C-alpha cells in the first residue's frame, strides 16, 4: 500500500531562530497527512517547533558525476575565505 503513496522529504526547525533541517523522509497520500505523519515520526521527542514537507520528486539534485566540475574549482582558493582581515581590537570577539 505504501508504495502507492508518494515520498516526502521532511524538514524540522528545532528551535526558534534556527533553520529547518532535513531529518528524513516518509510516505503519505498528500501534504496534509505528510505533516501529520512527520509530526508523529520525527517530533516524538520534542524535536521541533515547525515542520516543512516537500515531495521528493520536486527536489532537483546535482548529479554525483558532476562532482568534479561543480566543486573542485573551489579547492585551493584560500583567498575566498575571510581569514585575511585584521580585526581591530575594539571590535572584540566576533
Amino acid at each position: 500500500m505504501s508504495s502507492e503513496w508518494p515520498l516526502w522529504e521532511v524538514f524540522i526547525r528545532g528551535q526558534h531562530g534556527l533553520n529547518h533541517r532535513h531529518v528524513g523522509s516518509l510516505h503519505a497520500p498528500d501534504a496534509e497527512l505528510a505533516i501529520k505523519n512527520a509530526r508523529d515520526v520525527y517530533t516524538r521527542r520534542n524535536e521541533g517547533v515547525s515542520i516543512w514537507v516537500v515531495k521528493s520528486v520536486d527536489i532537483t539534485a546535482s548529479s554525483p558525476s558532476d562532482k568534479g566540475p561543480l566543486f573542485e574549482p573551489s579547492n585551493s582558493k584560500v583567498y575566498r575565505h575571510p581569514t585575511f582581515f585584521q580585526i581591530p581590537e575594539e571590535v572584540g570577539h566576533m
Partner: protein
Amino acid sequence: MATAEIAVDRAALFEFLTRMGDNTLILGHRVSEWCGHAPVLEEDIALANTALDLIGQTQLWLGLAGEVEGKGRNADALAFLRDAAAFRNCLLVERPNGDFGQTLMRQFLFDAWHHVMLTALTKSEDPRVAEIAAKAVKEAAYHLERSSDLVIRLGDGTDESHARMQRALDDMWSYVGELFIADDADRAVAEAGIAPDPASLKPEWEAIVSEVLREATLKAPTSAYVHKGGRRGVHTEHLGYILADMQFLQRAYPGATW
C-alpha cells in the same frame, strides 16, 4: 484543593477518576496491540504515539484516584492489581481492534467524547482535575484531528474502504451512549463542580460526529439501543482477556520492577 475534597463524597470522586483513567488505560492498551502490525509504518508510529499519550494520562488519573482513595494504592496498583469488576471503563474502549477501520472508528467516537469532556474538565473546581485535563486536552485535540481526518478519507474513499467504515460505525455505535448516562457518582461530582454532567456533553459530541460522518459520507445507525455496564464494572468478556495480558507479569511476579 482541600475544599473540593470536602465538598464531594470521596467515593464518588474516586469513581469518577477511575472512569477517566480506566478509559485511557484500556483504550491505550488496545491501541498498543497494533504496534508492529499497522497497515503502514507511519500509521504504526502514529498509533503507538496515541497509545502512549493515553497511558500517560492514565498515570495521572489513576495516580490521583489512589491519592483520593487514601488506601495507599498508586496508579500501578490500580492498573495491575484490580479485577475486571473493579474496572470502570466504558464498553466502547474494550471492543476488539477488528480491522483498521474498526480501530479507527472506535478511536474517532471516543476522541470526540474525550475532547469535549477534557475541555469541560479544564474548568473543574478541583485544581488537580483541571491541571490533568489541561495537559490531556492538547493530546486529545490532536487525536481527534487525526482520527476525524482518517475517518473522512476512508469513509469517502474507495467502495471497499467506505463499506468497511460503515460496517465499523454500525458495529461501534451502540457502545457510545453509555458515556452520556449519569449515575449517582456522576451527579455528585457534577454538583460539586468537579466534572460536567455526562448528558450535557452530548450536543457538542453529536455536532462533531455528525459533521465528520457527513463529510465521510457515512450514515449513523438509527437504532437507539445502548449497551451499558462498563462504567459500573459490568464488562464484556473482552476485558478479561485484556487484563490477563496486561496484568500477567505483576500477578505472576508480584512487585517485579525493571
